[in-house]
């Protein structure tokens, strides 16, 4: 074989990194299992159509063809397969599913980014009330705590906010669209040109601050209070305030920030969204929210749904790799197998040395810096 290189955007994982990722995934899944969620595994290969509602921005999915020439993809996301499954199997709702696995997104070549991302997450389908968001948040907090992430910032946002404010602005639709585009791209130069048209209206003071409408929960709410009354906003603000109060009660030391200037992570989001990051991370540790429109891509009937996925790679970057104590090798003669098994069972962090001679066993122990227990000595 001539080509022994990895394709761009992939990597082998072994040793401590692989161990840390496995440990993190196990801890996250244990939390979900303990809370009565059921395991769901979907295939890595799906028809490309399943992911049509997904906006991958600058990335795309790996594509191939099946025997009939239909486009297949390596799944770029784990939420849409759950929606596909629910719409085709008639599972009784409400249901709570958890999953773990890798997703694949082709990113810019030779940019140092990886195209295979390990995720673990859950979907809560069939519950429409705030309790769904709250259980998701409790799991997010528990997941970070259990995997040893400290000083995580929890960010709340809501898919309904921007749309409701834009709806209320006294300008024609194309202006609203241009304003939204500049707001989402944080293009201040263009945003300020458009919002200047409304400077003298009651929306003026709020619009001047809107691109910066993220940060400490109470500070953001003070700016929101500058808005004239918009009836559609009342439930959104009430939900956010109730959630902040809930978090204060459940996790008093948790830093909670609010961002009301961003688009929702995907088009099918219909309500609150939540993400977590640390001060020096370059990726979000988890991301989730309410997406009652999720199943609409697959069936006529809407179903309320909340879900969240942890980025296992981002979590692994945050967790210090534990220093493993030196391993112990157990050298033995073939007829001592039972004794070897017993020694293996009671010696922590040990492994059988399968060398055929004492000399070879010693050589392995020296070259790999391991301790050697020689069971043949006692014969």
């Amino acid at each position, binding site marked *: 074989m001539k080509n022994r290189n990895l394709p761009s955007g992939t990597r082998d994982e072994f040793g401590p990194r692989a161990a840390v990722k496995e440990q993190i995934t196990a801890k996250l899944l244990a939390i979900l299992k303990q809370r009565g969620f059921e395991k769901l595994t979907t295939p890595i290969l799906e028809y490309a159509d399943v992911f049509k509602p997904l906006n991958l*921005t*600058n990335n795309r999915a790996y594509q191939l063809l099946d025997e009939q020439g239909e486009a297949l993809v390596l799944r770029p996301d784990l939420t849409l397969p759950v929606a596909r499954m629910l719409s085709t199997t008639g599972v009784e709702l409400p249901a709570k599913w958890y999953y773990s696995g890798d997703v694949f997104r082709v990113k*810019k070549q030779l*940019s*140092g*980014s990886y195209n295979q991302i390990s995720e673990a997450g859950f979907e809560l389908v069939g519950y429409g009330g705030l309790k769904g968001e709250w259980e998701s948040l409790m799991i997010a907090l528990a997941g970070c705590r259990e995997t040893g992430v400290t000083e995580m*910032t929890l*960010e709340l946002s809501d898919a309904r906010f921007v749309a409701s404010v834009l709806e209320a602005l006294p300008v024609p639709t194309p202006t609203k669209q241009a304003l939204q585009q500049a707001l989402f*791209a*944080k*293009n*201040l*130069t263009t945003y300020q040109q458009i919002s200047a048209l409304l400077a003298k209206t009651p929306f003026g003071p709020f619009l001047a601050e809107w691109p*910066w409408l*993220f*940060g400490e929960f109470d500070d953001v709410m003070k700016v929101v209070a500058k808005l004239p009354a918009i009836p559609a906003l009342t439930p959104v603000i009430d939900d956010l305030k109730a959630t902040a109060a809930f978090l204060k009660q459940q996790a008093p030391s948790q830093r909670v*920030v609010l*961002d009301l200037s961003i688009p929702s992570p995907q088009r099918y989001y219909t309500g609150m969204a939540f993400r977590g*990051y640390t*001060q*020096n*991370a*370059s*990726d*979000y540790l988890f991301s989730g929210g309410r997406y009652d429109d999720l199943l609409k891509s697959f069936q006529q009937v809407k179903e309320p749904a909340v879900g969240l996925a942890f980025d296992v790679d981002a979590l692994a970057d945050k967790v210090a790799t534990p220093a493993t104590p030196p391993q112990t090798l157990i050298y033995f003669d073939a007829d001592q197998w039972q004794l070897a098994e017993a020694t293996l069972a009671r010696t922590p962090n040990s492994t059988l040395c399968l060398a055929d001679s004492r000399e070879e066993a010693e050589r392995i122990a020296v070259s790999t810096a391991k301790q050697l227990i020689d069971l043949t000595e006692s014969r």
Partner: protein
Amino acid sequence: MPIKIALTKGRVEQQVVPLLEASGIDCSGIRSKGRRLIFDEDPVYETILVKGPDVLTYLNSGAVQLGIVGSDILDEQRNPQYAMLDLGVGRCRFVLASTSDFDPQQVSRKIIATKYPNITKRYFQSIGEDVEIIKIEGSVELAPLIGLADAIVDITETGTTLKENNLHVYAELQPVSTKLVVNRLALKQYQPQIRSLIDALQQTQGVNAQ
């Protein structure tokens, strides 16, 4: 930890350093840089000098929080980060240019030479035309003169280089200017610092505009 700025070296650097200084950033190191590439004179901002296309590579990976780069590169690379502020310098424009015998209505499939294949592709798509694009690394003006291409898509500030090569502008594409680009997550992590820098830069611009 200081906030890191990736600044495009060369012309952008010369035009932007006065703006950064007026906004209170110590750029004395960049003014007398020698061969250095990292400048930590300022207590809050650490500046690194890189090539334009690399600004986004650093920014996307999260290795730097802010970038200063021309919108030509942002458009060509389909920048996913926040281009928050037009710094008002480095203004120029993309044009379609060629020799005087070029016929924009020609029936055959045109061959266009450019340093910016994505921008060229999007432009011709927007006018419903399909062209063959040849990627050139520099001195794009040569291509129609030597017969490599029918026309070029390139940036021009004053049009002098085009005129000197007897090339005419057949269409004006999007304008170009230097932008301050912010990594999406860094904007949240360093909100107060980035906001005060942007406010200061906008104030400087306001003063310049008067």
